[in-house]
């Protein structure tokens, strides 16, 4: 695990340095374009923009992302099983502190992890995910997200995103400014001698070319980092749970949905376990997507034979991809310990459609703090939190049911009684 993080750090460092150089060069050329010798000023400005964006994401990044996605922090009584799974995976990945748990009240199944440091990280899932997946599948998803936290993927992706953002911002402002002003350096050119005018002309062309190319190159680099880390989290998730089928089957269910995740947008999309913006049937090119094709991820997980160690994932990866690319670092692959795949712990037969919709409805109401009251005739009534009366009349049998004080749900009461 440790070696994996170390080697990951080194490779990511190289990509970071490449992006950093692109940012500095862009600043230099844009600065020189506006006035001769202004390159240094341009670099300082570029780094300043980068610094401000970094500070904002470092201090408030996760809370901004969570509130933009309308995720809400929940207590164990909403879904005890999810909390159990998060704790299980926390133990398996040997993290010091259990991440917080957030739920998005949306029927589209998906999940993501946030938190620059493992100590204050959070795992977010949608209500749809909880109602669609069985225990093993949910465990696979939680393991994938926990791997992102343990591998410091969120830190890396946040800072890669900031560099990309700075580059895109500077080039866009520059190119737009150029369009409207029609080239502000013309003034300088008329005043200077013909020699420096020619030099200025070259810088102008280089600046424009760079402003067009740098964002594209940075974007491709960013996508490359992102895709690699998705594979790594899959490999790690399979190793943590010792059950690749759980994650594979979860990915299948998540990708087969027709529902849209309403709160997802272009900025938050790369965080999710499966890109929520990708429409069904649309085929994104390999180079320009943040996630590897889901069908491929599923195939790799399902062809892991003979164990769940990193080497088995690498072998499956090579087999499906049909080429010998090195996905995992040598240190991880040298671990030849055979880790057996465990048996399924829960039935894999899917829950019936009606039952699934009912659990989803109940869950969403629990999150919204509805009270559940079961009448003596067997009817389950769902009382909204702003209901003021002391009792409620059953619409089926006409009995009067008192509303117990502080009652949130019968589900939560059962779960609490099990917490000795």
């Amino acid at each position, binding site marked *: 695990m440790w070696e994996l993080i170390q080697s990951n750090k080194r490779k990511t460092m190289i990509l970071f340095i490449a992006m950093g150089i692109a940012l500095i060069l862009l600043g230099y050329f844009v600065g020189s374009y506006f006035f001769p010798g202004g390159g240094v000023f341009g670099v300082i400005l570029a780094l300043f923009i980068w610094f401000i964006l970094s500070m904002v994401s470092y201090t408030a990044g996760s809370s901004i992302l969570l509130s933009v996605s309308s995720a809400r922090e929940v207590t164990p009584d909403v879904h005890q099983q999810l909390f159990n799974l998060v704790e299980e*995976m926390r133990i398996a990945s040997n993290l010091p502190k259990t991440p917080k748990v957030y739920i998005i009240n949306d029927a589209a199944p998906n999940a993501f992890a946030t938190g620059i440091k493992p100590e204050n990280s959070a795992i977010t899932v949608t209500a749809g995910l909880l109602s669609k997946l069985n225990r093993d599948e949910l465990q696979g998803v939680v393991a994938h997200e926990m791997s992102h936290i343990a591998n410091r993927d969120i830190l890396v992706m946040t800072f890669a995103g900031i560099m990309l953002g700075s580059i895109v911002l500077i080039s866009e402002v520059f190119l737009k400014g150029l369009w409207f002003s029609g080239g502000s350096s013309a003034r300088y050119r008329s005043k200077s001698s013909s020699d420096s005018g020619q030099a200025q002309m070259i810088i102008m062309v280089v600046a424009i070319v760079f402003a067009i190319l740098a964002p594209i190159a940075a974007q491709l680099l960013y996508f490359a980092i992102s895709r690699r880390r998705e594979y790594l989290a899959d490999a790690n998730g399979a190793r943590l749970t010792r059950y690749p089928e759980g994650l594979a089957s979860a990915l299948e269910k998540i990708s087969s949905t027709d529902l849209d995740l309403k709160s997802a947008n272009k900025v938050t999309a790369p965080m999710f376990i499966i890109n929520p913006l990708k429409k069904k049937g649309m085929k994104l090119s390999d180079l320009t997507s943040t996630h590897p094709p889901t069908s491929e991820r599923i195939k790799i997980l399902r062809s892991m034979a003979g164990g769940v160690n990193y080497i088995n994932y690498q072998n499956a990866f090579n087999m499906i991809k049909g080429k010998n690319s090195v996905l995992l670092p040598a240190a991880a692959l040298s671990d030849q310990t055979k880790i057996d795949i465990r*048996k*399924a712990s829960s039935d894999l037969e899917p829950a019936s459609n009606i039952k699934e919709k009912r659990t989803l409805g109940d869950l969403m109401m629990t999150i919204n703090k509805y009270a559940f009251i079961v009448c003596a005739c067997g009817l389950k009534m769902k009382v909204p939190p702003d209901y003021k009366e002391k009792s409620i009349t059953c619409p089926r049998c006409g009995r009067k049911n008192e509303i117990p004080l502080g009652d949130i749900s019968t589900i939560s009461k059962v779960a609490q009684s099990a917490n*000795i």
Partner: protein
Amino acid sequence: MAALIIILVIIVVVILMFVSMYNSLIRLRNQVKNAWSQIDVQLKRRHDLIPNLIETVKGYMTHERETLQNITNARSQAMNATGVKERAQAEGELSGAMSKFFLVVENYPDLKANQNFLALQEELTSTENKISFSRQNYNDQVLFYNNKIQVFPTNIMAGMFNFKEETFFQVEDKSDREVPKVSFS
């Protein structure tokens, strides 16, 4: 004078090396202890859950007195066991008794409709998982620590300050390595 400085620098470097080796050994030993305490927490949790489980199911499972008695016996044995090896064995037996119980539960549809039982079942399944994950983590930490004690140059340090190898938490029965099959349908 120059020779003296060089000798002093070498001495300081050697001392610093020894300090960092000693500290890394201490850190690893603490990690082993910490991993052990995590198993301990989960084992205790299982011991606490069992009386509740027996209380919930005994009304339904009047014909399974033997299975329930086995769990109770295994539990009290596990609670009284001391030392890593003896404990691993006793807890292994308890895991075996529990997985037999969950197999038998399949024959009682009434029980599987009981909300209270379902919540307990989830808790027990999760605790079983946590036990196996924390055991895995403990063994990993023991492996790191034992390796460090055996390799040069830390083995000198370990010998001087009496760092002893730790025992792995191994379960004898092979079937116990797997999580008991529990149905959630």
